[in-house]
């Protein structure tokens, strides 16, 4: 179970109190009624679902009730940072360091040899 730092409560709290709320920094178009079908699809339907560093939204729904943003590594589940809603996408200066930590120097788990097996 994850331990998530709520930027409003200013402490780490159990994942039980939170709800995931999808990819972050997808602004609702101001002129939404005028956008094309393709632009609407891009806004509403299409998500990157990237492996590794992702920006996502969480809500401390059973805590302060606030939505906020998080930068999380989906491979290690490590939270690189969380920050308040409304702030621009925050740079994650430690991303390379974090990546270096999880980069495997040895080969032994299935995940590591998956490519090999193919």
């Amino acid at each position: 179970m994850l331990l998530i730092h709520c930027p409003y409560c200013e402490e780490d709290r159990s994942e039980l109190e939170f709800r995931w709320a999808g990819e972050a920094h997808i602004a609702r178009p101001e002129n939404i009624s005028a956008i094309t079908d393709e632009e609407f699809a891009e806004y509403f339907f299409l998500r990157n679902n990237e492996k590794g560093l992702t920006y996502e939204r969480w809500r401390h729904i059973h805590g302060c009730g606030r939505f906020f943003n998080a930068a999380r590594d989906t491979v290690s589940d490590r939270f690189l940072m969380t920050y308040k809603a409304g702030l621009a996408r925050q740079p994650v200066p430690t991303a390379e360091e974090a990546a270096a930590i999880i980069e495997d120097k040895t080969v032994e788990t299935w995940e590591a040899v998956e490519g090999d097996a193919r």
Partner: protein
Amino acid sequence: MSASPDKTGAFRIKGVGRHTPARTARFTFDGKSYTALEGDTVASALLAHGVHLLGRSFKYHRPRGILTAGPEEPNALLDVSRDSARRQPNVRATVQEVFDGAKIASQNRWPSLSFDVGAFNDVLSPFFAAGFYYKTFMWPREAWAKLYEPIIRRAAGLGEAPKEEDPDHYANRFAHCDVLIAGAGIAGLTAALSAASTGQTVFLVDEQPEVGGALHFDTSTMIDGQNGYDWAQDAAARLKAMPNVTVLNRTTVFGYYNHGFLGLAERVTDHVVRPAKDLPRERLWQVRAKKVVLATGAIERHMVFANNDRPGIMLASAARSFLNHHGVSVGHNVGVYTAHDSAYEAAFDLHRAGVTIAAIVDCRADPGEAVVAQARALGVDVLTGHSVTDTSGRLRISSMTVVRNGGGNARKIKVDALIVSAGWTPSVHLFSQSRGKLRFDEANQRFLPDIYAQNCISVGACNGTDDIADLVDEAIAAGGGSAVVSAENRFEWTGGMIGAAEGAGPDTVVKAFVDFQHDVTAKDIRLAVREGMHSIEHIKRFTTNGMASDQGKLSNMHGLAIAAEMLGRPIPQVGLTTFRAPYTPVTYGTLIAHSRAELFDPTRKTPMHALEAAAGAEFEDVGNWKRAWYFPKRGEDMHVAVNRECRTVRDIGGVFDASTLGKIEVVGPDAAQFLNLLYTNAWDTLKPGKCRYGIMTREDGFIYDDGVVGRLAEDRFHVTTTTGGAPRVLHHMEDYLQTEFPHLKVWLTSTTEQWAVIAVQGPKAREIIQPFVEGVDLSNEAFPHMSVAECTVTGVPARLFRVSFTGELGFEVNVPADFGAAVWKAIWERAEGLGACLYGTESMHVLRAEKGYLIVGQDTDGTVTPDDAGYGWAVSKKKTDFVGIRGLKRPDLVREGRKQLVGLLTRDPGDVLEEGAQIVADPNQPKPMTMLGHVTSSYWSENCDRSIAIALVAGGRAKAGETLYVPMSDRTIAVEVTDMVFFDKEGGRIHG
């Protein structure tokens, strides 16, 4: 060894072991009664009586005994019961402590343990090779249901699940600590002493009844001048006395999850004779630790050779545990087969206890000099460079066949037990679960922790630290504090091997077992490689090696080595399968903990629940809510009651509990603007004191929720939602408010439970409530349909809505919830006197269907737009923005022929359609038929004196007047498409 008349078993050795001789316990095994000593495991108690045969194997039904003395046991799985309801299958005999009165039975055998019909499988074993099931039970397809599945189901599985409800209860506890230490052997205890010295909060967790770990069997380690085991008990006592330390015995750290979160299963009563009623059987601990010290030790491996599975063959350390801790000898004439020095010490201990050591067979040419010298000094025969290539004995080993490596004459040596060791596998399971990365220690043929993913450190044997002085230093450092512990060993251990031993190589067809619980042999693993499985994950699934409930604690390394040899690749390239939680099986009871019976889920009751129950209501579950479903009078069934209720509401009046409706108070100067953005309707035009029915769409244009919204003041709205939609609608609103429209000055508060809601509907509704209402003129002119006012009802401050979900004159009285019962009582007393009725959700459904009012979630399914539902009028044409405005313009949402809600009338008015039934245009069309849609709501309408239905039909509104068909399994029902209003089409009654 002198024969003992000891009633606790002929193999009990006087003066050896740590149990108190006077404290005995009686139990039965397969109906026969035995006496044990308190502190015995089932395994040690049975061995004391010379009982080695404990079960039959999974696939071949081969006789099996006890292989280990710990939780890694793959063979000795038993059925343990306290009484008929308290019975648990697949209990490891090596873990279960004996308690007085225990009833223990062997499993997986028929008709008896010593004569098992299924053992015929062993003879047929050439047909049961790895992958047998995949290849054999393929065709014909029809045979699956009738033939293969029943056979496999009967043959497969271990043990028999209990049939009675579990009478025990289970507890759960969330906890936090600075340091959690898994394992209380030398390393764990030392780390705990060190960590505790800093004042940090410490959890020390160990799966055994007493601390000590390997010190249970290892009698040659001295710590601080004390016998190691005694030192351990002493250390634990010191730790328990410290306020910042929690020591949990009989507790398994079964899972190491993200961010320092660990799952612990504490076995509270399984060893207790008569547990106090209040005691939970097990307690789940959910611990968040800032730091974790893994001191989980190592697990000894067996040797892989022909017929290595007979009862009487066991790990050397297990035999040593049974002897040194339990005072039980595993035989009178014991053979040793080893690739590691540690087995010698087992032989020394047995020898000292008077047991004959038939021979020590060591497959290595040059074992550790010290142990060999000691063996020879004791007069024990040591055969280095030799191997055991076979064993004999039907229900227990009677001899071992020994051959010099590389060839030579085989000789049979009589034994009644054979203890084996292929060396030690560090227990890296928890480290691996924590997502740590392992490295392969080529020199010692083992995987060791390398890269840590969490704030965690491994110490001692699980970290490959063999030297005891190093181990202690490592543990003190890991604890982060200081401790003074000086420990020394008599012998240094060397050796170890993984893979098949001499005589079980690729050129042989012998049954050399790798995985005992799933009956996987070295040959099976080679077959998997020959059949094209090149990844260890594929090999594992093809052979099921390591997939039994012991998760391959003994078999993984051997299986990997055999596969690597066949593949001609180094071990690290073949890869290790990933360890998953739980470390050992956890009961469902523990995981469920409190979530049983009344606490399985909250049962939500309205403030009027008790009054409704007293009035004879039947209730239905709507989410977690109990809602009054219908109110049968004496002799009425549901149909009759609902017909009466529906008729009475329209003829006179009815009283209905609508408290579960979701309610959200929307307050602030921008409240109307906010609602404009969240609903399809326009709200700025709604005047205070008025209500409006609103539809909420998602951004994709589909209906998300609906409800009546009342404007109480310029800056205050009382929003209602569907009963089931309340939490998600509030979440959806908060999402937009906080992240898309944060500039709006408006706040949302859930008030669902603040208000008890009493709906009074029907021609006499006004007459019913009139005497109780003060502060508002209820006349049609002053308070028309869709009005709201704050007033008092029976003197209680109330919000009164003039709204209707029946099409009749209607009011909804909202009073603060604590007053709900009193107000309901007053209103119902008067209503009853006027001939009105109580009605429930079933009548509510029928009445609203008669008027064509939709129910979101029943008539809509997440693909229905307001226009599809016939509510296009609720979508503002003037607004420039609202959630869904763009989605509604998507090409697929504006195309012709979309499914639309329409009414259906069956040709025979007595036919009531089934909800969910499919609708077609041509009932004679060959299959697959073109489905036009389905029935969403269908009822008998007493007021219309016929059946009515609502359906989603492609191009439905344009089909008005057409006949369509609903094919059922036994007949086809003709229906006419109509509009959705079946009763009072002019809609005059609502303004009554």
